């Protein structure tokens, strides 16, 4: 016999169900969780499909913030006008996730909750200091995006919590945003390494740099040594060798001795080079 599938139509109803029952697995788009369907059934997990909760499907802005409902798909994010205007790196990352079929189902909330170390949204969200609003029946809390991740494929949410929205403060967004990834092929590929950058560049000078890498650790993190190296440098006068050494350091510190270390030492220089080229082009356009 099949297991029960709860299908609440409102967030409140979903939270009430979570409050009462245990061993519930939450399914949004399903593109990750359905792969584990047999294991979940065998373990006696019940499913809760939240894809019918339409109130979690929005992208909106106010004076200070951009808010993305947890059920917004990557297809929607990639095409959305607000996201392309304010956080083009997130739109760019979204357009590169999976195939059209996957992007039509996969949600940003699900990407965070699934806690894949290679999630393409994470280095971007981290780079703009996105906050995740998590709700339970009687309370809600805001946590920095990366803190939603506990470990490999393990999130930090309590059993009775659901991701409600992602909040990005406009004041955190600088004038140059960037995303890129290295995968096994051009499209439909899972990142071996990805980067999200949020840079303040003025008159060919890097005033501030937030550089985040994903797929190098259990969660996306800031490469502070690269950031401080880039800050207060002229974009067209960055020493390639020094820059590459800083990048390689990031890999050496993150995964010492791992079989992929050598590969990623090269990959990170490729991504770093793309970032620099893109910055040079940006500066060349007179910003």
């Amino acid at each position, binding site marked *: 016999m099949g297991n029960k*599938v709860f299908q609440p139509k409102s967030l409140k109803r979903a939270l009430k169900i979570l409050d009462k029952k245990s061993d519930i697995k939450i399914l949004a788009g399903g593109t990750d969780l359905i792969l584990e369907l047999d294991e979940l059934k065998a373990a006696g997990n019940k499913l809760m499909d939240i894809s019918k909760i339409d109130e979690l499907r929005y992208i909106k802005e106010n004076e200070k913030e951009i808010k993305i409902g947890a059920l917004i798909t990557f297809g929607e994010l990639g095409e959305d006008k607000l996201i392309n205007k304010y956080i083009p790196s997130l739109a760019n990352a979204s357009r590169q996730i999976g195939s059209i*079929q996957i992007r039509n*189902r996969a949600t940003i909330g699900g990407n965070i909750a699934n806690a894949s170390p290679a999630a393409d949204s994470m280095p971007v969200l981290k780079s703009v200091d996105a906050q995740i609003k998590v709700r339970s029946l009687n309370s809600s809390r805001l946590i920095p995006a990366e803190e939603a991740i506990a470990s490999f494929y393990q999130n930090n949410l309590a059993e009775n919590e659901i991701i409600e929205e992602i909040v990005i403060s406009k004041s955190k967004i600088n004038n140059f945003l960037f995303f890129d990834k290295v995968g096994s092929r051009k499209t*439909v590929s899972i990142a071996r390494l990805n980067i999200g950058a949020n840079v303040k560049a003025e008159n060919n000078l890097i005033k501030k740099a937030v550089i985040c890498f994903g797929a190098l650790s259990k969660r996306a993190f800031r490469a502070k040594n690269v950031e401080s190296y880039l800050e207060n440098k002229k974009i067209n006068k960055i020493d390639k060798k020094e820059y590459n050494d800083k990048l390689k350091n990031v890999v050496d510190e993150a995964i010492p001795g791992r079989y992929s270390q050598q590969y990623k030492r090269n990959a990170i220089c490729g991504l770093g080079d793309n970032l620099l080229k893109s910055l040079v082009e940006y500066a060349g356009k007179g910003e």
Partner: protein
Amino acid sequence: MELNFTLNGKNVSIDIEADKRLLDLLRDDFHLTSVKEGCSEGECGACTVIMDGKAVTSCLVLAAQADGSEIITTEGLAKNGELDIIQKAFKNNDAVQCGFCTPGMIMSAKALLLKEEDPTKEDIEEAIAGNLCRCTGYVNIINAIAEAADKLEAEKDGK
């Protein structure tokens, strides 16, 4: 669990185990065997169907999620015994070899043409990036979809 949805233009209602995949619902309960199971993990696109106007891999959709939706499979394309323009174009361009990927390819193409009347070659390539074909080398498939787009436009002009 009772599911109500539109399948190839008809309202259907079925009482099923809700925790199965849409792919299994379509194949086992509705006997729509154009929907192929290939990789079972959303990589190959052989199980692609159209759900609410968008291409999805039915191996990654829970049957329960189909409730209230509109699903189209390749079986739903031919009208009055006549093949859809995309199906004809696949025939004309020898875009079919073993045929296993064909229904998924056609549904990805259909979803593209529902959204974009004037697809570029890049649009077509992106639309079928999630559909693997191990026989044709894709060239004839891309030509077929481009031809279908042209014929659809010509048909509109004719009316």
